[in-house]
C-alpha cells in the first residue's frame, strides 16, 4: 500500500438526463465518501458545489452521463462525460448570468447562468471540451491543501 499509485480511490456514477427526482444523488455519495476519509470541510464544501452544479447541468441538458470520481492524497478529481447537445459557445457559457435554461427550469430554481462560472470559481483545475450534438467533457480538480489539514501532523509524529 506504500505505492502512491495504489492510493487512488475511484468510483463511477451514472447520471440520467431529465431525472429530476434523483437529482443530486451522485453529489451526496461523493460527499459521504469525502467525509469518511476526513477531508477538511471547506474542501468538501467546494467539491460538493462543483459536483452538484455539474450534475444539475447534465440532468437539465444532457441525455446520459458518467461521473468518474477519484481521490488521491493530493487531489480530488471529478470527470463528467456526457452524451448530449453539447455547448455551442463555451466562452459564452462561461459568462456569469448567461443561460439557455427554459422557463420551467428557472421555476425550479435553476438556470441563473451561474453553473459553469460557479464550478470554475470553486475548483483549482477546470477543463471543458464540447462538441455540438455529441456531448461535453468536464474535468474538475480540487487540491487537498495538506498544509491546512491536521493529517500531516499525525504523519510527522508517526
Amino acid at each position, binding site marked *: 500500500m506504500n505505492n502512491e499509485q495504489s492510493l487512488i480511490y*475511484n468510483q463511477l456514477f451514472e447520471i440520467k438526463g431529465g431525472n429530476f427526482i434523483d437529482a443530486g444523488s451522485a453529489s*451526496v455519495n461523493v460527499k459521504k465518501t469525502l467525509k469518511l476519509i476526513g477531508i477538511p470541510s471547506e474542501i468538501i*464544501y467546494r467539491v460538493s458545489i462543483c459536483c452538484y452544479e455539474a450534475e444539475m447541468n447534465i440532468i437539465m441538458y444532457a441525455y446520459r452521463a458518467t461521473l468518474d470520481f477519484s481521490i488521491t492524497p493530493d487531489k480530488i478529481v471529478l470527470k463528467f462525460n456526457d452524451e448530449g447537445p453539447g455547448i455551442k459557445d463555451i466562452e459564452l457559457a462561461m459568462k456569469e448570468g448567461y443561460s439557455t435554461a427554459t422557463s420551467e427550469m428557472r421555476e425550479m430554481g435553476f438556470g441563473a447562468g451561474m453553473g459553469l462560472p460557479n464550478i470554475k470559481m470553486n475548483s483549482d483545475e477546470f477543463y471543458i471540451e464540447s462538441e455540438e450534438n455529441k456531448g461535453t467533457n468536464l474535468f474538475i480538480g480540487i487540491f487537498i491543501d495538506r498544509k491546512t489539514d491536521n493529517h500531516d501532523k499525525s504523519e510527522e509524529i508517526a
Partner: protein
Amino acid sequence: MENTDKYGHSIYFDSEKCVGDMACLKVCPAEAIRIRTKVRNKVAVMLEDKCIDCGECVKVCKSEAIVPLTNTFKDFSKFKYTVAIPSIALYTQFEKNIKPPQILSLLRKIGFDEVFDISQASITVYRGIERHIQSSKIKPLISPFCPTVVKLIQTKYPELLSHLLPIISPLELVAGTVKEQISKRTGLKNEEIGIIYITPCPSKTILILQKLAYTNQGKSCIDGAIPISEIYPLLMRLVNQPVTHTAQCEHYEINGFGLKYGSLGGLTSMLENDNCIAVSGVNNIIYILEGIERGKLRNVDLVDMHACMEGCLGGIMVVENAYIARSRLNSLIRYYGDKKPPIGKKDNYENRNIYDENIYKPQPIKPIDINIRNAIAKVAKQKEIYQQLPQINCGACGCPSCLIFAEEVVQGILKLENCVALEFSLDSSPQPKEQPPKKRKQKKQTIREIPR
C-alpha cells in the same frame, strides 16, 4: 444526571437492561448505534462522536435500556431557591378548561419557589429575529433553538454553522433575566438559585451538560431539566383542587401571540414572512441542510428546524400526543388573543441583550483514519468488501447497513465472518446458482406451448 462522556450526551445506554433486540439500530438517523457483543450478551452501544441526541432510539426501546438523562426532584435539594420555567408544551398536556395560570400555580404547590412563563419572552426574541433577518447577509438563517439541530450541524454540516441565528432562545432569556433579578432581590448567589426547565425532550439537557454557551457569561443559565412526563402525574393529582397560591400572579401574564412559539411553524407565523419555512423530523432536516449546503434555498430568510415531528409538542417526554396538543395550543392562542402586541409595550425583558455572542464549534465525526493516505486506502478497501456483501442490510452483524459493516471490517472492529447472510450465501451458493436458470427456461417453454 452525570456527564458521562466528553461529548455531553443526553442519552445513556444501559447495557444491563439491553436485550439486543435491534429496534434502535434501524431508527437512528445518525447511524450512531451498533450492537456489540459484551461478555456473552449482545447489547446496543452508542458511538459518541456520531450521536445527535434526537431521542428516536429512546422512543422505540421496549426494555427501557436507553435512558434520557434528566433530573429528578432530589437533584434540586442543593439549591436554596428553585425556579421552574415550563416549556409551552406543558400547557397543552391538560384538558382545555385548565389554563396556564392554574398550571403555573400548581407548579409552585409541588415545591418550586417561583414559576415563570416564557410566552412574553418569545415575543422579545421574535422581534430580535425579525430585526436580524433584515440586516443579515447570510441566507437562509437556521434557528438554533433545537439542540439536536445544532448538534447535527456541528457534527455533519460544520460549514453551515455560520447560518445559525446568533440569538438566544426565549428559555435562555427568561432564565438569565430571572436569575439576575432574584439574585438582586434575595441576595443569593447564582449557584444557590436553581433554574429548572420543564422539558419535552432530553436534548435540552445538552445545554446543561455541555455548558453550551448561550449567554454572555459563556454558559447556559439553566441548571436542571425535569421531564414533562415526570411533572405530569404530580400536577394531575392536584389539578382538580382549588388554586391556593395566588401570590405573584403578575408573572403569569400569558401572551397568546407569544404562545405560538410553542408549536412547529409558530415562529414563522409570528414573523409574517412568507420566506420563512418550518421543518421537523431529522431526515427532513438533513434533506434541507443538504440543499442549503449546495447553495439552494438562497431565497429563504429563515428555516425553523425542530428534530421532533410537530416540534417540541412532539417531544419524547410529553404525555399527550402531538396532534391533540397542537389543537389545544391553538385554542389557548385564541383564548388569549393572537394579535401582535404593540411594539412600545414595556415588559420584563426590555434592555436585555438577546444576541448570542458565542460561536458554535464544529464537532466533526472521526474520519476512518487520521492519516489521509491510510484513509483513502481504507475507503477503497471498504468499497471492495461492500461489493462482496449481500447488501440486504439485515443488521444481524450489529451494524445498521452493509456499508457500515464494511467500514467496521476495514477498521478491524468486526470480521467478515460476522456477516451471517454472507456465510449463508457462501454455503449454498454452488447449487442454487446452477439450478434457477434451468427452471426459468422450462417455464418459458411451457408458456409458449400453451397458446400453440
